[in-house]
């Protein structure tokens, strides 16, 4: 499906979401509180969409809120979308995708490690890159470590 067709189709499926054409691919954004797992379920199981391949999962700290960014690809149709999900800064919680896309188990651990986002239903949510006793979440914009970080 081309990007325009995708946008039309997605708008049909998720009237509540805001969908724009990004630099490469359509971007579909959800506000916090939307039912995330069912969205993913639709995207993955819909026969014309079939987004079965999560190739990038990350998070961006916008100082006021977090945005989870999922890049999805369909190995059947080879069309991509970007899925965004807004999170509160106080209680950053989102459903874990580790049972839908198994690759996200490690990605989510990494995001938990570096951003401190809690993934509900994750089987093994603990720090992966840093030591267990690390204080703080280093990729947050307000992270400061005067001992280890020498500013240039």
């Amino acid at each position, binding site marked *: 499906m081309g990007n325009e067709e995708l946008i039309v189709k997605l708008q049909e499926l998720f009237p509540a979401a805001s969908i724009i054409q990004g630099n*490469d691919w359509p971007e579909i954004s959800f506000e916090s509180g939307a039912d995330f797992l069912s969205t993913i379920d639709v995207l993955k199981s819909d026969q014309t969409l079939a987004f*079965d*391949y999560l190739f990038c999962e990350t998070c*961006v700290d916008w100082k006021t809120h977090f945005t989870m960014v999922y*890049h999805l690809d369909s190995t059947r149709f*080879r069309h991509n979308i970007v899925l965004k999900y807004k999170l509160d800064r106080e209680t950053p919680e989102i459903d874990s995708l580790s049972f839908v*896309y*198994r690759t996200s188990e490690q990605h989510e651990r990494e995001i938990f490690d570096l951003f401190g986002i809690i993934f509900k239903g994750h089987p093994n949510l603990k720090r992966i890159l840093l030591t267990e006793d690390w204080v703080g979440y*280093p990729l947050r914009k307000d992270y400061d470590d005067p001992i280890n970080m020498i500013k240039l």
Partner: protein
Amino acid sequence: MFEEIKTSNDGELVINVGPQHPATHGVLHLLITLNGETITKLEPNLGYIHRSIEKMCESLSYRQFIYSTSRMDYLSSHMNNHACAMIVEKGLQVEIPERAEVIRVLISELTRLASHQLWWGAMAMDLGALSPFFYSFREREVITDIMEETCGARLTMNYIVPGGLMADIHPNFVKRVKDFIIQFNSKIDEYDQLVTGNIIFQNRMKNVGYLSPEDAISYGTTGPVARGSGVSCDIRKLYPYSAYNKVKFEEILETGGDSFARYLVRIKEMKQSISIIEQLIDNIPEGDFQAKTKAVLKLPKGEFYQRVETARGELGVYLVSEGGTTPYRIKFRSPGFSNLSALNHMVKGHKIGDLVAIMGTLDLVIPDIDR
């Protein structure tokens, strides 16, 4: 003299493999649980080389951050630089001269060859054969010499800059690459003679570490690992970038899904790389090697994503710009990170020796995983 020894008999043995272990190719730490010699559980523990490149890049300018990506996946440093340069060019909307694109692809394929050769030697070394390592490095050294002459460094080249290349190719480049192709074609049979056909190697790799196509997609594996399971995922073919749409090559797919399939994919990919180089080496267009860019680069506000095919699989660079001279957030989707996540699934029920064979054919580069 004879002290009493306390033994326990809960049967299972928990063993640390790594961070300092000859088979982990760096500092991967695996916590494995053994029953006899069969692995019942494996837990990777990363971060022993987590260098916070993503955080560091947030304070580097668009010209500077590229160099640090060479140290991520140092065996395909050129492809990493390529991805980063392309994302900056995408933001700036700069057209790259044809010559630069072709040279980028040429060097990328040479890097891929060098990387696969190192993998071949290192994998054989993991399985206990030491000589292949030396034979593969013989050819690899020729490539690094070519790199050194043109790019100025052997491994972390930093040859690509936003807008083109740092320097034009060396006058000897074309001739030396052609010599290399002749040498390589005469030596590739040795690889088969020594390893591919060898009964011990085949027994060590066949039916070991099976990964089904569905699992390969679900675990997000890319590159030779996924192609060994029959999943088409070559970014060069699916989403062509740079000069890849001008060359003819095949995407290698094997359906075995085991270590041997992954092995064959890489061996055949080397031949494809040679064919790409052969097509391009005589057709390097004349012209500039660099587009005109400003001294200080500023990307417009927005989000950019670029996928390239490195030697290990798909590298994605996700860049968020707030309009300044430095990236607001940069994320590297490294191929090794996803490939590693399938390891636990693949080794269950195998022996320690198989763990080594599977890790060898996954071709992990740990700094690429930890970033």
